[in-house]
């Protein structure tokens, strides 16, 4: 079933929007329905069906290698990265690699155990949509996307560290 309301960055502004994608868990039967978010392994097994199912999306678990999605880039509109538990930080590296190394420019979504205190970090590694855990207040969570005005180190957003972006003499 569709996710319901999610947070999406539109022109860098956070919006709460209705979402039409349907998540297919591992092992769930997918018979080519469109607007399906399917496991990356399923997508790799059925490239032709994926092409026909537009719009299509894949999701990665923490152990899935992001490089394997690259051949699918042309057939998909959405990549989601799953955070099985709050403390599992592998998905942050997955996102940073998809954006900075593999050049994914489409929508990148955080799913799973997504709570508001992770949102600032998730935004910085390149996520631009967030499916907050269903039991949480999505309106309040949006505020955490801007917990901090700026950052020291480069990542995806922004890519450059502060010392390459700012004129320190004017910030003293």
């Amino acid at each position, binding site marked *: 079933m569709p996710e319901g309301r999610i947070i999406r960055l539109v022109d860098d502004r956070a919006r709460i929007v209705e979402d039409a994608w349907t998540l297919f868990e591992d092992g769930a039967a997918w018979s080519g329905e469109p607007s399906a978010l399917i496991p990356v392994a399923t997508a790799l097994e059925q490239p032709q069906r994926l092409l026909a199912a537009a719009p299509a999306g894949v999701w990665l678990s923490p152990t899935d290698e992001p490089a394997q999605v690259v051949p699918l880039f042309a057939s998909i509109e959405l990549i989601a990265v799953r955070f099985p538990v709050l403390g599992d930080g*592998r998905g942050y*590296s997955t996102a940073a690699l998809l954006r900075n190394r593999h050049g994914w420019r489409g929508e990148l979504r955080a799913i799973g155990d997504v709570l508001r205190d992770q949102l600032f970090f998730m935004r910085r590694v390149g996520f631009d949509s967030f499916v907050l855990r269903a039991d949480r207040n999505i309106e309040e969570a949006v505020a955490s996307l801007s917990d901090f*005005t700026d950052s020291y180190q480069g990542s995806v957003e922004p890519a450059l560290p502060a*010392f390459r972006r700012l004129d320190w003499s004017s910030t003293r």
Partner: protein
Amino acid sequence: MYRYTEFDQRMVDERVEQYRDQVARYLRGELTDDEFRPLRLRNGLYIQRHAPMLRLAIPYGLLSAHQMRMLAHVARTWDRGYGHFTTRQNIQFNWPRLEDSPDILQALATVQMHAIQTSGNCVRNITTDPMAGVAPDEQVDPRPYSELVRQWSTFHPEFSWLPRKFKIALTGASGVDRAATAMHDIGLYLRRDDTGAVVVDVLAGGGMGRTPVVGTIIRRDLPWQHVLSYCEAILRVYNRTGRRDNLHKARIKILLRSLGAEQFTREVDSEFAHLEGGPATVTEAELARIATGFEAPPYRRLTVDPDHLQGQLASHPGFARWHARNVSAHRVPGYAAVTLSLKRPGTAPGDLDAERMDAVAHLAEHFSFGGLRVTHEQNLVLADVAQQELFDLWSELRALGLATPNVGLLTDIVCCPGGDFCSLANAKSLPIAQAIQERFDEADYVHDLGDLTLNISGCINSCGHHHVGNIGILGVDKQGAEFYQITLGGDVGPEPASTRVGTVIGPSFSAGQVPDAIAAIVDRYVALRTPEERFIDTLLRAGLAPFKSAAYAVPGVAHAESESLEHA
């Protein structure tokens, strides 16, 4: 020291607000205990036996007099009038209320202090040589590089939810390592190559804990500009492939061991190949900007008058003893670095009360350009004292009880808070430290023993760094009773190859037996040593056996031995 820009200040201020909101949400029941735990931990707040414990960051151990006064204020206002300096160059307060913790942090932010990443599975406070910038043996001042790494690792979006805690240390000294660099997840050895350029030998996979490991140098001669990119490569390999299924196997040392150093290095290097020369490459301008915070204080041109000092030493044996142990050489003629021992008999190692914090702040301003450092041995350093003022400083320190002449001696015990405070501990550690202090109350004897490190940890988390003590003591729990394992031969050498983890000598001892066992070990050293040998030298020459037999010959110990063998 590094002075915050508006940029730095805003980040700390925003962190206070973020944390205040997290605490409020927790108190309103909007965050469960499990959800709040990682949030409070990465802000240094533990839930302890009696009250929460709040650990504050002292980046690479550097503290101003002004900041020390704020610590005194925190101790008086929100705690019970004292704080505990830790083996990670931080300070902990043992009695704050959770509800007050946002206000404490707000107060600290006014003096450019915080509790960011002092716990949790993230990059922790950066540590370095407390003699940085003043030691004559220094090749490279590690402080600007430490600040670079501090900034890079602060709220790093990709590496804030690691498999386990992650500790980075830097050293720039040669022939000595005052930061135990080899025992860190990443150790950065700064030195100069033949052309005078700063290069870095990068170590990975060191750590204490359940599986103590001396780290491995995985990259030599890395140009300093790449230090952040290389750290990024290591952290990315660790974040992606470090184990997350078992808390005890999640440190990077286990990953390095399971892959093998060669394979691990290959993976890091292939990651670094993507990052080399990228945005994280440090610019000359940025290093220079940060380095201005660490410029030398306005030293006076001092005439060195050895006769005057010799006269003072000759006529005041107490001053002479203190001078021999607590005063170190300085690169600037006429100056010295002074270590304030926080190991006064009768007080817990590393503890300092608010009155003394204020007094130390005053002394720092009067004698040492307002600067202070915290050592990983839980002492304080006034790094820039004019030699001609040493006697006056000593007199003032003596009045405060901060002139105990035992730096580097047996009674300079490094000790975690242990079971009296810490909910992780298996056993109490402070009473053991006190019992050993009392057993060795003869200053002449302790002085004669010379260099000897003794470290006590209340549990295998090893906050007391017992693995690298010449004598290490570890509290263990045996069916609800507290026992103590003794290790011998730990040592922090100038490089990984000469850094050693101690060996457990055998079954554990009861609390009452520990001082006698230590005394027997030390007596055996006195009997075996040659005139030039330190304790560790004799131990390495003679081997464990004679020390072990001495320890287990102590009356009453045989019982513990047979008992623990039954449980083995």
